[in-house]
């Protein structure tokens, strides 16, 4: 299982224009093209998870995540925010890179936690923040994942 297999160019936004954490979560959920009600429920669940503790893991990276019945398979998205967002991250620094991961309650192959783990592992690599900053297209993002082999 490789992270690259879960992402596609249409769920990567390298030019988020949002101003808040909430707007950012909504924008990334929007990349999944769910119906309005499902988006709203998913947003609520992600917010709820954030109230239990920020998913900002430091070094400008956040990994909001949740399980919900409104998705029927594991979905991931990535967004980059040039100015940075207040995510109440562990290191209290602005978040520029947001990996969103959502999954249904039950998955046949139970990939949710392993994928979450791989994103965390990828995020901890020393050069990753700089490499993410330098991306010029969603395709390059996918290439980076491939190159890292996570």
């Amino acid at each position, binding site marked *: 299982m490789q992270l690259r297999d879960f992402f596609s160019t249409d769920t990567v936004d390298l030019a988020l224009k949002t101003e808040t954490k909430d707007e950012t979560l909504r924008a990334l959920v929007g990349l999944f093209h*769910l*119906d309005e*009600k*499902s988006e709203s*429920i998913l947003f*609520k*669940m992600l917010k*709820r*998870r954030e*109230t*239990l*503790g*920020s*998913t900002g*893991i430091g070094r400008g990276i956040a*990994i909001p995540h*949740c*399980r*919900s*019945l*409104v*998705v*029927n398979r594991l979905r991931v998205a990535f967004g980059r925010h040039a100015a940075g967002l207040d995510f109440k991250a*562990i290191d209290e620094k602005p978040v520029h890179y947001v990996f969103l991961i959502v999954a*249904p*309650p*039950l998955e046949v192959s139970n990939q949710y*936690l392993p994928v*979450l*783990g791989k994103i*965390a592992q990828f995020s901890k690599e020393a050069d990753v923040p700089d490499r993410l900053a330098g991306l010029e297209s969603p395709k390059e993002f996918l290439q980076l994942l491939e190159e890292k082999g996570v």
Partner: protein
Amino acid sequence: MHEQLETLLEMQDLHMQRRALEEGDVREFESGVFDMSVEEALAALEDKISDLERRLTGDVQERYRRVIGSRHRAVVPVLGGVCYGCFVAVPTSWASESDPNAKMNVCQNCGRFHYYPP
């Protein structure tokens, strides 16, 4: 979507978060990677679930309590015309409605509430 179904879905997701946090792997991951205070998180989830439960109307609340007490999941998806709680086929007429989630559907076999994913 029916307002009560929306509340049930939210409750279901919160139940799931709580159960996941009680498991070793997720608990370890959330506290290790995200620095989460798991005990505080569990208490917060419990409060929110109770808060939402009070929003359920009488008959829905009664069924919810009955089902959650014995079957763990009160809301299950219907996929391919099958209830994913008991794996028994549901009447096809329900799924053919323009928005089957606009009303409260209950499995005639296992009693769980049905949700039709988009």
